């Protein structure tokens, strides 16, 4: 078994905000997907959502700037830790993620083995 991090990335679109009903439906799909991974023993850790705001500290000067999020085409909205046999299976698992319906993406990254 290997571990993989799923990074959930959203493009910031100018689409009109979803209605309460649509948001509830989206959420129920996420909850169902997370539950399914959990029941199959694939979810090592559900992970966390990340705020859309933050700071970036960079360079030798250690300059602190507001996150590059305003200009970023896509930002990481959260992550989960998933267990799978190999990258192929990890990708297979990610296919069920509801993020694709809203034009987002999942970055599947193997955790380096030590």
């Amino acid at each position, binding site marked *: 078994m290997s571990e993989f991090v799923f990074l959930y990335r959203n493009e910031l679109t100018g689409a009109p*905000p*979803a*209605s*309460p*009903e*649509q*948001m*509830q439906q*989206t*959420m*129920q799909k*996420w*909850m169902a997907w*997370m*539950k399914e991974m959990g029941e199959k023993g694939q979810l090592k850790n*559900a*992970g*966390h*959502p990340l705020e859309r705001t933050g700071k970036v500290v960079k360079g030798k000067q250690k300059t602190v700037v507001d996150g590059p999020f305003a200009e970023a085409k896509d930002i990481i*909205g*959260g992550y*989960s830790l998933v267990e799978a046999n190999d990258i192929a299976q990890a990708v297979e698992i990610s296919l069920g993620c509801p993020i694709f319906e809203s034009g987002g993406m999942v970055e599947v990254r193997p955790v380096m083995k030590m």
Partner: protein
Amino acid sequence: MQLDEHLFRREAGRMVATLTRIFGVQNLTLAEDVVQDAFCRALEVWKFRGAPENPSAWLMATAKNRALDILRRERTALTFAPELTRWLESEWTLRPTVEEFFAPNAIKDDQLRMMFSCCHPRLPEEAQVALVLHILCGFSVDEIAGAFVSKHAAIEKRITRSKKVLAGSNRLFEIADEADFSARLPAVHRALYLLFNEGYHGASAESAVRVELCQEAMRLATLLFDHPLAATPATFALSAMMCLHAARLPARLDASGNLSALADQDRSRWNAKLIAEGRKLLGQSASGIELSEYHVEAAIAAIHAEAARVEETDWGQIIALYDTLMRLRPSPVVALNRAIAIAQRDGPERGLAEIRAIADVERLNAYPFYFAALGELELRSGHREIARAHFRAATKQARNAMERRFLEQRTDACEVQSSAGVPAGILRPRRLRQP
């Protein structure tokens, strides 16, 4: 943890009502933004953590905290509800004041306040209904356009314009003022009645949408009971009517998903609980001297509910009630229904004569069931060709695929040889095809 169906939509109405009470009606958009924000947070967090033990409380607390942030930050830039200013200005009173408004009873009153505010006399009735659906029921412009079979742009314009009127009215409707309250209450009844009817008879093809509109109207009507000034005989009568009609919804579509006329419905599928509830409410509505059109409509529905089979219907009493309704709120549609009831009691020729005598009958020219009624009565009188022409005209006016299918079947039924003397009830397709 499984979420209640439509939880977000319902909470949207509760939160917007309460936040608008605090922010002031001129900041309605700000209240809507805070609600949207609360849902976004819920979406992000619950995705990973699952829904909390009490999702409504979580959403309310999130909205409340966000409101406190805004009240602190924007104190100098914005004017909030003027009567609350001095409580919101000081840190000593800010939190307790806001807490008070998020108490369950206060939220109920806020919804009522918003309901009355949406039924502003400067707004046409259809705008009031759209506004109630948008603000208090959390329907998006697209969802309302879908339910009313209107164009997105038309509904958007209607809602934007209505919101401007609402925001420009300086303050929310004051529900503590008895005289104002009683004066506005009929408009609120009317809006809820139209909302219910849009679901029950409306033009939308999607049956799920229609049921939801009926449910929303019933939910908002129950808010009225809890307020002493709103719990009037007309309120009980309106709710009775809604329950008795809603009881029939499960039977409106037959097993193959086709529209089923009242005379044809499988009455065992009527919701007995709603019928009992409707009867109880109708009893409560009889406490005063006031006789509203809702009393009469509820009474008609109660008579239908009493008949286990269509043949047992007390048509005489129904005709008498339609006579009363014609006095209270005359309309060509009421006159048509009265004529149909007369045909049931006295035969198709009498019914046709009554239809011909309707004043403003031309106002029914866009109403498919006007031509359908003519078709049924002509068919029962043995005039197949005339009947078929009427059904064709009705089919042209059909507002959705379901109505079209139903009316096409009736057109076809004019071809089939039916044995003479079959008591073909009005709008009773299957019986005619299977003599």
